């Protein structure tokens, strides 16, 4: 019987990709756009100053959240809400236009803590707790009122911390921030669109929720952008931001 360890050592040394494939990937990059960026970026410390934009949304159902330190110019609508019922999720943007709401995220955060805090909790891309908070968010935003919701996503196969997503509806626009993203710049969208259809399993309905400025965006168009590698097609579709991809039994 052959020793499996030798097969691992020899077999896994094999590369599965060839140079032609790598070159094709490099050619897909729009270098014209990136060459416009400074090659050497100046190193400077970014100080949060009092002019930061602070807008406050809220999460219903008594969600506990410790807001980051604000300043004298900040304004808060939480004053009108009983603190024991609702604590604010602060929509804080620094002078560089970046969201600062993830600066004090809890460490070693667990699923149970997230459930208790009232956040929408996802485990391996399936919502497992506080789904009703989402309906409330959608309804409040549809009425034109500022609101916010925090979604916490855990991955079973990964022991590292969960990632957080904060979705705001503020002054008529939606903005989504993701703690796992390298960029926290604010992108505003006019519409929160829920698209429904069938994809894959015929026994299940698929629901895709996106932020977009194009409320005519269709289920099939969004699906195609998710599964295609054709960059020309992706770029031809109105910009959108994926919020949810859900499946449910028919």
């Amino acid at each position, binding site marked *: 019987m052959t020793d499996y360890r030798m097969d691992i050592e020899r077999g896994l040394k094999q590369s599965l990709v060839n140079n032609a494939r790598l070159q094709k*990937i490099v050619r897909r*990059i729009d*270098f014209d756009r990136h060459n416009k960026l400074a090659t050497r970026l100046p190193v400077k410390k970014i100080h949060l100053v009092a002019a930061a934009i602070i807008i406050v949304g809220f999460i219903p159902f008594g969600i506990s959240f410790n807001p980051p330190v604000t300043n004298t110019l900040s304004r808060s609508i939480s004053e009108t809400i009983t603190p024991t019922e609702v604590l604010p999720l602060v929509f804080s943007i620094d002078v560089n236009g970046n969201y600062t709401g993830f600066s004090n995220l809890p460490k070693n955060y667990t699923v149970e803590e997230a459930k208790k805090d009232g956040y929408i909790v996802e485990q391996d891309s399936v919502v497992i707790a506080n789904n009703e908070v989402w309906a409330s968010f959608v309804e409040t935003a549809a009425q034109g009122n500022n609101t916010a919701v925090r979604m916490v996503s855990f991955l079973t196969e990964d022991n590292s911390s969960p990632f957080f997503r904060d979705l705001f509806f503020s002054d008529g626009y939606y903005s989504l921030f*993701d703690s796992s993203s390298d960029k926290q710049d604010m992108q505003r969208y006019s519409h929160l669109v829920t698209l429904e259809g069938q994809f894959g399993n015929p026994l299940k309905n698929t629901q895709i929720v996106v932020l977009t400025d194009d409320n005519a965006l269709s289920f099939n168009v969004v699906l195609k952008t998710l599964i295609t590698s054709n960059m020309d097609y992706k770029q031809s579709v109105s910009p959108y931001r994926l919020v949810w991809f859900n499946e449910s039994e028919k």
Partner: protein
Amino acid sequence: MRGVNVISEFDYLKHLSDGHPKNEIIQHIAEKYGNDLWNYAFSIVGKPEIADDILQDVFIKILEKLQTFRGGSSMKTWLLSITRNTAYNSRSKWLIRKTFSIDKWSDQHSYPSAETEAIEQIEMNNAWKIVMKLPVKYREVLVLFVHHDMSQKEIAQTIGVPEGTIKSRLHYARLKFSKHYYRGVE
């Protein structure tokens, strides 16, 4: 990778970022590290075309982050960390593709697994085929240890878990590999 000269890699990146056009920088990195980054991305997502997308994103991130590399870790560890983050961050997309293929559904009414599809598209030897059947947390450490020749400490640094966890995962990865292996041999 064990015993790699960190200083020379730092100088190499510094040299690259000093006024060279972006496409030349990425061309250098693709030639030197492209294979490793693609294989790592593939070992996480299990689909070649998604590994392509991830590598493209990684190259763009490298352009944006060149100045943040300070030689604290080896350059390869730094690049693999970016690749890992990109692969996991895009999981909402690749999970969709991992689970379904709209074209295959309409053509065949079947649900090919990520591994089955990968095997169809990429020529893999027996070891890779077995590894791609393991849960991602096991195959990831096995690929980093064997294919990328990383130490357990470097893997722990890349994945962001304690070294003891890596040791444990490697043990179970080998165990699971051997079960699949001997099942196939016999």
